[in-house]
Structures are given as structure tokens and as C-alpha cells.
């Protein structure tokens, strides 16, 4: 239990690092030159994707369901924000509307789907994602069709424009912090504990008076609303949206993030989003730096190595290896590394057949 006591300081340290990460610290004697626009843009993208992944984590990691619709909810939030801010409404309203709309759609979609067997929510959400994507592509009068919506403006806060990448990064970071806190509170509440009971053993939870279906439905709707919130940040961050990031493949990636990060943990989605957003980027940069690192080698072999280490190939192999060696995700791996002796019954519960996702201990 010593581990838990240091969560708060570790968390504060992480937040502090994230706040100062873009800044040039050489003036106060630290060897850190800060980030350039691209680094800030990328970190903002990471946080935005992590918010949506947090939603998936609530659905998958806590309520034991499967969703393939997060990219669609992400898209609904993004398009709604683009349209409302274009119409002159403030971003705050768009943000709340994005959350509210995706919550309601989540209820409407989840209600019938959760009546039937396990996995069927996954199938219904798959159909929903493609359908929403078709609407984005074809309803040109509303969404701009395949050409998308351009020139989405970033909001101002207390009269300060959030156009500079640094300000928008800090803005995104604070929204992320608030949403993370809400998620933490939700999971710690009696309500959230019911989720965990649900995941552990749905039948027992039901016999203890938990209305399983209502809880699952609410988890799905709230998780989907996190997708909507993330979309509301994504639209002004990128400044341009078209249907491509909201298709089926990105929805699969959200599932990947949650499992790779560590499902059923608060930190998991952040690590998972880093794997999905930042890792491919680093691999690509590393690949393009190979000629510099291997200076003096035969150009033909450099070209061959670059080919072999194509960033997507390396990425896919990393994911497979990671799943094979730490099926509980990065959080699980991390716990194994920092916990010198194994605790008897947190991490290594064998999977029961059909019991849903493996779990990485309690909510951290």
C-alpha cells in the first residue's frame, strides 16, 4: 500500500512537468530549451485524444462493455463545435452542447443495444460509426461533405486569444485536468464503485441490487460524452475538420489505446493515447534521422534499413509485443516494475472465460 501514498505527489509532479514542458528553462539554469509549435500541437493532440480515450476506458475498463463508436462521438463533438462557433456562438456553449448531444445520442444508441447479449453493443456501435461517417461525407449543406469545414477559430479566454499554440496547450491541459478530476470523482463515488462491482461480477452485482442495465447505459453515455468533449477541443486545435479522422479505423484505435494503456485505470488512457499519438510520430522522426545516425554507411543499406523500420511496421510490432508481455497494459507493466514483491491478488487474476477485459488492479 506504500504505492498509493505517493500517488498524489507523483500526480502533482506530472502536472507541473506538463505545465512547464513547453517553456525554455535555460534562463533558470535547467538544460531544457522548451518545445516549439509542433511539440505543443502534438502534446495538445495527445491530451485531446486522451480525453476521448478516458471515455472509452469508462465503458470498457469499468463497465465491461465494448464500444466502436468513440471516433463517431468525437466527430459529432467536433462538427457541432465547428458549426456553432462558425455561427458566432461562444466556444463554451459549443463545448457543453457537444457533451450534452453525445450523451443523449449515447443513451438512444445504448438503450436498445444493451438489451441484447454481450458484444452486441460493439456491433451496433460499429454500424453507428459508419453511418455517422456517411452523414459527415454526404450532407454537404451541413458538414461541407468531403471538403470539410475550414478556418475554425480558436476561442478567447478573458479577452486573451488562445491562438498561440502555448496558450491553447495550457487551455487544453486545464480542461483535461477538470475532466480527469470529474472522472476520478465519478469512479470513487458509490456510483462508480457499482461499476467496478459490475465488471467484477455482473450477476452478483445484480443480486446485490445494482440495476445493471441502467449503470451500463449511463457508463456508455458518459463515456460517449467524453468523446464529444474531446471533439469540441479538437476542432479549434486543428482548425480544419473533414470526415477522415472519424471513420471506423480510428474507433478501433481508441480501443487499442485503452487496452495498451491499461484498462480500468485512470492513467491508462493517457499512456495509451501517447502510444497512439506520440509514438508513431517519434518512430517516424527516428526513421527519418537514420541517415544522420548511420552517416558513413552504404546509402543502399541505409535505404534498406529505413524500409525495414517503416514506422507503421515497427509500431505494429511494438503493440503486439506489448500485448504479449504486458496484457494488463502499460500501467500493469509499470506496477510490476515498481512493486518489488507481488501482491497476492490484484494484478494476476487469471482471466475467466468470457469475463471481458483483463484488469490492471484497482483504479489508480
Amino acid at each position: 500500500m506504500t504505492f498509493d501514498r505517493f500517488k498524489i505527489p507523483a500526480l502533482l509532479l506530472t502536472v507541473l512537468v506538463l505545465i512547464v514542458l513547453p517553456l525554455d528553462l535555460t534562463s533558470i539554469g535547467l538544460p531544457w530549451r522548451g518545445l516549439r509549435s509542433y511539440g505543443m500541437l502534438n502534446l495538445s493532440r495527445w491530451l485531446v485524444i486522451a480525453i476521448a480515450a478516458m471515455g472509452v476506458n469508462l465503458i470498457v475498463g469499468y463497465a465491461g462493455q465494448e464500444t466502436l463508436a468513440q471516433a463517431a462521438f468525437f466527430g459529432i463533438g467536433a462538427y457541432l463545435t465547428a458549426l456553432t462557433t462558425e455561427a458566432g456562438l461562444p466556444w463554451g456553449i459549443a463545448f457543453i452542447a457537444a457533451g450534452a448531444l453525445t450523451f443523449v445520442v449515447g443513451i438512444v444508441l445504448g438503450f436498445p443495444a444493451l438489451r441484447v447479449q454481450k458484444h452486441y453493443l460493439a456491433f451496433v456501435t460499429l454500424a453507428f460509426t459508419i453511418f455517422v461517417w456517411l452523414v459527415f461525407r454526404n450532407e454537404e449543406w451541413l458538414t461541407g461533405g468531403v471538403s470539410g469545414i475550414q478556418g475554425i477559430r480558436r476561442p478567447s479566454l478573458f479577452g486573451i486569444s488562445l491562438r498561440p499554440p502555448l496558450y491553447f496547450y495550457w487551455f487544453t491541459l486545464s480542461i483535461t485536468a477538470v475532466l480527469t478530476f470529474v472522472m476520478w470523482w465519478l469512479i470513487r463515488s458509490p456510483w462508480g464503485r457499482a461499476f467496478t462491482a459490475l465488471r467484477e461480477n455482473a450477476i452478483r452485482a445484480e443480486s446485490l441490487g445494482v440495476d445493471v442495465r441502467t449503470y451500463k447505459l449511463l457508463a456508455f453515455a458518459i463515456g460517449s460524452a467524453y468523446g464529444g468533449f474531446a471533439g469540441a477541443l479538437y476542432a479549434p486545435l486543428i482548425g480544419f475538420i473533414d470526415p477522415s479522422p472519424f471513420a471506423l479505423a480510428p474507433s478501433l484505435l481508441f480501443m487499442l489505446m485503452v487496452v495498451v494503456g491499461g484498462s480500468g485505470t485512470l492513467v491508462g488512457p493517457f499512456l495509451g493515447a501517447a502510444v497512439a499519438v506520440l509514438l508513431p510520430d517519434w518512430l517516424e522522426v527516428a526513421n527519418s534521422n537514420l541517415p544522420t545516425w548511420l552517416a558513413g554507411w552504404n546509402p543502399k543499406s541505409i535505404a534498406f534499413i529505413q524500409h525495414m523500420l517503416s514506422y507503421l511496421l515497427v509500431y505494429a510490432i511494438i503493440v503486439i509485443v506489448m500485448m504479449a508481455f504486458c496484457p494488463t497494459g502499460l500501467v500493469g507493466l509499470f506496477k510490476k516494475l515498481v512493486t518489488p514483491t507481488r501482491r497476492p491478488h490484484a494484478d494476476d487474476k487469471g482471466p475467466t472465460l468470457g469475463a471481458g477485459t483483463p484488469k490492471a488492479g484497482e483504479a489508480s
Partner: protein
Amino acid sequence: MRPFASLTRRSFAAVSIAALTLAAPAFAQDTIKIPNIIELSGAGATVGTNWKNGSSLAVEEINAAGGILGKKIELVFVDTASDPGKARAGIQRALDDKPIAIFGPIYSGSVSATLQMTNEAEVPQIIGGEAANLTAQGSKYIFRTSFGQNVSMPKIANYLRDGVKAKTIAVVYVNNDFGKGGRNSIMKELDSRGIKVVLDLSTEAGQADFAADVVKLKAANVDAVFVYTNEEESARFLIEAKKQGLNKPLIGETTLLGQKVIDLAKDAAEGVKGHVGLTVDADIPLVKAFAEKFRAKYNYASDHNGIKGYIAPYMIKAAAEKAGKLDAKAIAEALRGMTISPTTTPGILIEGTWDATGEIDRISFLAEVKGGKQVITQTLPKLKP
């Protein structure tokens, strides 16, 4: 205390490694890096790979001949995954290094999403996009490598009116930014020429089954069909059209009568006609030589995106030599209003003139598929010779 100590040490190490990779890589001064932000995975991977191969081939030649103003060029490739959001991130990454030019993207949507960034940073962006509106958005820093649809579609419309003598037309297009943009442009041009569009058919990228589309075309009372889809879809369409015996003139652009389509559709491509802006089949020695070199190196025939990628480095070379320095703003300045001729820059293949908005003007061709080959039937002069 131990777990905490190791925890912080570990997370500190992790963060520093992450931070190091985010920070700028230092690079040597004797090579100039030109980033290519192009479609290397996702729906546009074929297009982007052709561009990558074309530009790599050109840079190899340029470096072998001493580089640009004495500096060697190194191309850096950044994948947009055919997603405009990632394209923006890629352009931002490129701009942070203050390059002398940026190549790409090729998908018009991704160009649309990024052209204001290069305009603000005053870095020339050599694009592969063909959508009509790209040059109309006020950027002074984008330059096309091929005709915009605002240039090619009037030529097709003229051909439909004068060559095919069509009064009624069916339009088949692919529902992506390329197809939709072309469809919107051709509609406008046909309308102004009094040609009626009777059937307007949207198809999907990656669509395999064109039975329903051909059934509709057979039923439609039209003089000709204008087909504006990507190469593979064009080939699948032609095969189905032949199978169902659709006997109407099929008219298209480079993506309907390129060698790639002929290779895939075989005899189903026979008799297809249209207008091509850039083609490896043009009867021009430099173009033929390029086609040879490309095939020898990559073991397949380049499409028009390969040519686009190939001429991009030569545009920068010619402009930088005219400006006399390797400076982004000066290169853009030099390119505006510039005519690059193959007599001084053979790599440009065909003489081209860029106007102040980045639009390109050069000769183009009317062609048809005969005996399994694209045959040029007429050469159309530059708009402003």
C-alpha cells in the same frame, strides 16, 4: 520510500526521453532538408508513394550534379496518413525547422487545411492538389505541379462540345475531395456551354462493384459519359462497362486513360478518350527518358503523381538559382511569374509558367487508348503562350 524514489526516477527518465525526441534534431549545414508532407499510408498511399519515388529520383540527380547552389538536398518524408489533421501537424513540424520549401500534400483537402500555415510562414509549398479552389484562397506561397481543375475542366468541356459533339452527359465521380472538386468544376463548365448533365453518379473510393452504376448509365439517354475516379476504380468501372456492353463514349482525365488504368483494365480500356495534363506517354524525349529512369529504378510505371513529385525539386532548383540564394521567401518570389524551360532545366520535362497565385500553365494533350497504349491525338497549346 523506495517505491516512490524509483517511481519518480523512472518517470523523470521517461519524460526526459520523450522530451528529447520532441526537441529539434540538429542537422549538418552542408545539406538542405526539404520536408515532404505526403500521403504515405491510408487511402492516398499509392499517390504519395509515386510522389515520393519521383521526388527522390530528382533529388538523386540534382545531388549527383552538384546540388542546388552548391548544397546537397536531403528529402524528409512525413506521412499525413491521408488525414488533414495529421497533415497540419506535419506541416507545423516542417515549419519549425524553417525550411526553404515544403513539398506536398497531394490530397486537396490536406492542402486546403495547410496552405494558410505556409502562407503565414512565407515558405513556398509545392503541392500536388488539383482542386479548383486551392489557388483562390489568397495564399501567395502555394505552387501547383499540375493543372488545377479550374484549368483542366474547361479543356475537357471544350473537347466534349467540339470533339465528341455531346449535348447530354452523364458524370461519374468518386466521392472524395478530388472527385467532388472535379465534378463541381465540370458541372459549371458544361452548363456554360449548354451541355446538359442528365445523370450525376457518386461512387466511393475503393468501390469494387460498379454493376449498379453501369446499369444506370445504360438506361440514361446520354451522348457521352465523363468518368472522374481514381485509377483502380476507373479500371474496375471500365471492366464492368465492357461486360454490360455500355456503348457510349467514355471520356476522362489522366486517371481514366493513364497506363496504370490500361494495365489493370486491359482491353476494357480500349477506345477511352480524354484530356491529359501530365502523362508519361507524351511523345516528348525528356518525358520518355524520365519514364525509363523511373521504371528502371522502381520497377513499375510512374503515374502523373510520380511526374509531379519529380518536377518539384527542379522547380526549387530553378527558382533558387534565379533568386541566387537558398531562402524561402526569395524562392517563392522568384517562382511567381517564372517560366521554367527544359532547355535550361531539363528536369522540368515540359515548359511551365507559374502565375502569382501559383497556377501552372503548360501544354496538355488530348489522347485516346488504342491497341493497349495511350496515344496522343492532339497537343493543346499553353493558355497564354
